[in-house]
């Protein structure tokens, strides 16, 4: 992978990491409400996949969607303002953490109904096909979502119609408290691709390079009109399901062992070992990301609340 792309993936991962840290601290300071799901530990997936997408390509995201949103080009300022329910947010504060959407950047929304994004992304891919563009769509979803009916319905039709879509499963091993082994008939969700006669592959979701190879193959296939692919990225969420989750269902040791597999650290090690970047350069990038996120938080905090007078706008076409 060329250095520029790698650095850009790295920068995105840092932005996501610090964004999530900030969301957590704002929540703890009571500045942020509602149901907030952090993707810390899973940054490599969104950052690497979206590094191959253009603005005109589509994604659908999930309740754990801050990372996807940032990786698809959202400005942290407006994303943070949305989390805080402010007028300057991507959805004017109407959506909050679970519903950030940024249609101009091809982000067809985080979604608080698990699995709902899959057929929507397939619809976006169908539109690309019928409009004869070379756009592709990516549906991000969790392991839990692969047990919803819509997962199966979407994969089937996407396969039958050879839609330009990539189904990217972030298998972080849990649906809230339920371990994937207790809820899912297969060990590897990628195996489910077989049922729909499409390629399915398992990759290390904390490894930028493995994800990169898989997504490149899948995009090539999609653009060649050969249809969808399923990529399962094995990863782990560091924090609870939502902020405030007591996490009785897993051990501290388990969490700690996964923190050792930090996708960001891993890429840094690669940079250092291969003399692509120096420690000093890495520190500069960290500091820059911290600055960006601090500024985003300041922006969000100082933004005004939405004006209720406009609350009915956009229920219907005016």
């Amino acid at each position: 992978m060329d250095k520029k792309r790698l650095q850009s993936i790295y920068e995105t991962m840092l932005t996501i990491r610090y964004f999530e840290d900030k969301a957590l601290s704002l929540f703890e300071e009571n500045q942020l409400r509602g149901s907030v799901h952090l993707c810390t530990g899973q940054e490599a997936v969104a950052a690497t996949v979206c590094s191959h997408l253009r603005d005109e390509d589509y994604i659908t995201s999930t309740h754990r969607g801050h990372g996807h949103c940032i990786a698809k080009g959202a400005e942290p300022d407006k994303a943070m303002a949305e989390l805080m329910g402010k007028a300057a947010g991507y959805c004017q504060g109407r959506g909050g953490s679970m519903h950030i959407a940024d249609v101009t950047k091809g982000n067809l929304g985080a979604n608080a109904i698990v699995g709902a994004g899959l057929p929507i992304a397939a619809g976006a891919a169908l539109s690309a096909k019928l409009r004869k563009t070379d756009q592709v769509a990516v549906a991000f979803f969790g392991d839990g979502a692969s047990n919803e009916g819509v997962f199966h319905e979407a994969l089937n039709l996407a396969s039958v119609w050879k839609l330009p879509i990539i189904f990217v499963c972030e298998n972080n091993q849990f649906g809230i408290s339920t371990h994937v082994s207790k809820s899912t008939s297969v060990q590897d969700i990628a195996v489910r691709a077989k049922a729909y006669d499409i390629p399915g592959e398992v990759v290390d979701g904390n490894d930028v390079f493995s994800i990169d190879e898989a997504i490149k193959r899948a995009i090539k296939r999609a653009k060649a009109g050969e249809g969808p692919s399923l990529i399962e990225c094995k990863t782990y969420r560091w924090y609870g399901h939502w902020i405030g989750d007591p996490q009785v269902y897993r051990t501290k040791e388990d969490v700690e062992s996964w923190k050792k597999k930090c996708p960001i650290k891993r890429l840094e090690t690669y940079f250092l070992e291969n003399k692509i970047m120096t420690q000093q350069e890495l520190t500069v990038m960290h500091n820059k990301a911290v600055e960006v996120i601090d500024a985003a938080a300041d922006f969000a905090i100082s933004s005004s609340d939405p004006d209720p007078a406009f609350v009915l706008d956009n229920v219907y076409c005016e």
Partner: protein
Amino acid sequence: MSMRKISFGKAINEALHQEMERDDSVFIIGEDVAKMGGDFGVTRGIWQKWPDRAKDTALSESAIIGLASGAAVCGLRPVAELMFADFIGVAFDQLVNNAAKLRYMFNGEVSCPMVVRAPTGSGIRTAYHHSQSVEPWFMNVPGLVIVAPSTPYEAKGLLIASIRNEDPVIFLEHKSFYSIKGDVPEESYEVELFKAEVKREGRDVTIVATMSMVALAEKAAEKLAEEGISVEIIDPRTLFPLDKDTINRSVAKTGRLVIAQEGPKVMGFGAEIAAMVVEDVFEYLKAPVKRVTTMDVPIPFSPVLEDYVVPTDVDITEACKAVVEF
């Protein structure tokens, strides 16, 4: 009966424990209901006592409802939990096209005694997909029973009655109630289904209020009493099929009706009440019926917006004054 103050959530938990104890055919099923004890902690302690009768499922709402109804027509009494009432959307077919109609489809030869517990309503800043008031989605589906308690006492007694009921019940738990405490007897007891409760007696205006609106109606009634307006409050408790008599009788007495509900106005719960009253006791009405409802809009996240679209006690007070002054 030995009373103590416990929370709404604890009252439901106690009802589940007591029914599990009493009847082997009762079991719970849902996402994270067993080991974790439910997203709101309502099913805590059940799996520890009855591991075989507490089923953690995959994320598969259609299957949860379908499995429950299949088990119910074959002799069990499932209590399914949908983590949020909004997710019934994913399981709509199983509930509306199947569970609701199985008794009818099978010539009355079977019952489908299942309960679907579902946290409903707004107020906890969770936006479009976790805040809706779903009752009207089901109010024109004959075969379903919709139960909506507004106190911990009712929550326990109505849930026990729902579990013992022979037809599918959607048991709505307003999510702002879970930590609210009230007097609840320790023993098992039933609160009668299909029976409205007069929460406060009055002469001048009837308020029919559901769930979160009951407490707001009481606040409004206090305020109005100071101004010499006497309010009668009725909580239907079973929203469908409805205890028409209690409401009609009250409106015949006061001659005025305000309905307070969460959820959009159009085709909401209040629409049915208004239509019923106009059909049944029109000659007693001294003023047009008024509805106090959530605005016709998805529930937005931002606290200022959510608070703006959901009705307040002031809205209820004003509606009462308007019908009294008509």
